[in-house]
């Protein structure tokens, strides 16, 4: 199993020379199971170029199903969707998986992302068939030969982690999430970092359950792609933003016995040189038991080795 990173950035796209090496597009990861299913995590601006490739290739076939698994609906994870070329081809079936209060509610939320007065065309203008699949907490389902399981994340208005297991490997996508220690993020807006006294026993219990579920899901996974938006200092200043540092990601990966950890959702203020330093420091956290890399836009990574593969033929 391989994954290709089309967008690795968090919050908003960051064009320009200082992000050329790691990439400036917002979140989008393509899973390439050996069995041929088309599975995508999130639809940040990175999905535009993936869509162009699919539209000219596999989606140009008489019928084609694309499954997009959404972590959540914050802009940096949905803003590329209307620019996904396969949506504009009649032969395609696009299945959108996410969490809301039911399939119809999910459709209504997504319809707001492409409609006047914000966007010139709407979902009814898309030529492909679009289906919405609402997921419950800790859902489990199959996409062809790929088995998918989910677990909730600690993020404002909630987010979902996905694990995909295929015949030749496994990948887990855990973006966006705060660690499970300082606060439980919910539906209300939190204007400032809370104190430890703000955490109730009920919150603590919920966080412990959430972390346990996430660690269980990550057990033995080949590649864990994890939100590491912050450095530790940045996290301490903004624990209520719903993002982690490499230290938090490493803790989960080590607990779960994951084979590889891939840093993801790079903050917009981290340029390429910052990223080099962040990855170098993070590598030391693996204690020789964990392979740590950082996601780079355009790279095709073998989940088993964590290495970027030379993919000239597959391109």
């Amino acid at each position, binding site marked *: 199993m391989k994954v290709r990173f089309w967008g690795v*950035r968090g*919050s*908003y*796209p*960051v*064009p*320009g*020379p200082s*992000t*050329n090496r790691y*990439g*400036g*597009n917002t979140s989008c990861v393509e899973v390439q199971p050996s069995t041929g299913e088309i599975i995508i995590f999130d639809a940040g*601006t990175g999905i*535009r170029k993936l869509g162009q490739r699919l539209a000219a290739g596999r989606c140009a076939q008489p019928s084609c199903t694309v499954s997009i698994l959404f972590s959540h*609906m*914050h*802009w940096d994870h*949905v*803003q*590329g969707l209307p*620019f996904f070329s396969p949506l504009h081809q009649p032969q395609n079936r696009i299945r959108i998986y996410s969490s809301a209060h039911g399939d119809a509610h999910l459709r209504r*939320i997504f319809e*707001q*992302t492409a409609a*006047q*007065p*914000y*966007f*010139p065309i709407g979902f009814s203008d898309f030529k492909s068939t679009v289906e919405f699949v609402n997921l419950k907490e800790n859902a489990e389902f199959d996409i062809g030969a790929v088995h998918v399981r989910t677990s909730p994340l600690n993020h*404002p*208005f909630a987010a979902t982690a996905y694990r995909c297991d295929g015949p030749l490997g496994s990948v887990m996508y855990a973006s966006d999430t705060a660690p499970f220690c300082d606060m439980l993020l919910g*539906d209300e*807006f939190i*204007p400032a970092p809370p104190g430890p006294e703000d955490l109730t026993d009920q919150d603590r219990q919920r966080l412990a359950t959430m972390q346990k579920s996430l660690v269980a899901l990550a057990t033995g996974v080949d590649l864990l792609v994890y939100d590491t938006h912050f450095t530790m200092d940045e996290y301490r200043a903004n624990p209520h*933003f*719903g993002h982690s540092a490499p230290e938090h990601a490493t803790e989960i990966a080590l607990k779960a016995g994951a084979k590889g950890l891939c840093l993801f959702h790079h903050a*917009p*203020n981290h340029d390429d040189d910052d990223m080099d330093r962040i990855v170098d420091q993070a590598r030391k956290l693996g204690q020789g038991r964990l392979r740590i890399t950082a996601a780079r*836009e355009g790279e095709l990574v073998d989940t088993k080795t964590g290495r970027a593969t030379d993919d000239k033929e597959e391109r």
Partner: protein
Amino acid sequence: MKVTFWGVRGCIPAPGPDTNRFGGNTPCVTITGDSGTLVVLDAGTGITVLGRELMSGPFGKGQGRATILLSHSHWDHIQGFPFFAPVYVPGNSLTIYGLGAASSRLEDILEGQMNPHFSPIQSLRNLGATIEVHEVSDGTRFAVDDLQVSTIELPHGETSIIAFRIEEHDTSVVYAPDVGYPNGQVLDRAVAFFDKADLLIHDTTYSSEDYEGRAGRGFSSFDQAATAAVRAQVRSLSSFHYDQDYDDATVADLLIRLRRRLDELGGQSITLVEAREGLTVEP
């Protein structure tokens, strides 16, 4: 008066090595008046770069004041606003002018972008800065300190945009992104509005070839921008809002063709400003 380009790309940000020269950020242009008045045109992702720079001045201390003029509310013209650093500093004051919609007021449109499903900020009310929103329509006139602003409503596909003309002393700049002329014919009333501007920033989303199949989308070709500039006898024309799929080499080639087109139409005296991120001109 100084004009700076922070984002010149249309529709969706286009990061990557092949857009380094002209830039991949969506629309944002600033006009700085002779006495320092700051007017921001549109709030695409280019405004995030502007915001970082402003934070080292009065905006970082909650003493900043700016006016934001929005041509319309399509994502690429407002998507940078929640990431414009000065909005989080209490004490800063932002006055927004823009077009409402038949179905909703401008303030509600901006609020919609902050909907908790899509934004952790959840509401404009959670931003620290003081934000005032005014709606404008065709023919609105107002002043921002020493700058005089006037507006015209122009077609953009099935909707419309507001183009702004900003004047200070004897200098005038017109900002007209996302203009799509019916049947590709530059409108007389648009020409009258652009008349003898020192700088006309005009939509140039498509090459003439690409425009053919996309005429209904509400954008202009490079050739149409040249026609508008020559007919309005402007002093300089700036290209703007490049299609997201045009890499640097493509844009550079289209700009060579634009210069040639201006000359063919008798606009040899018109200076061509090749809009790119980071460029500052004095019109």
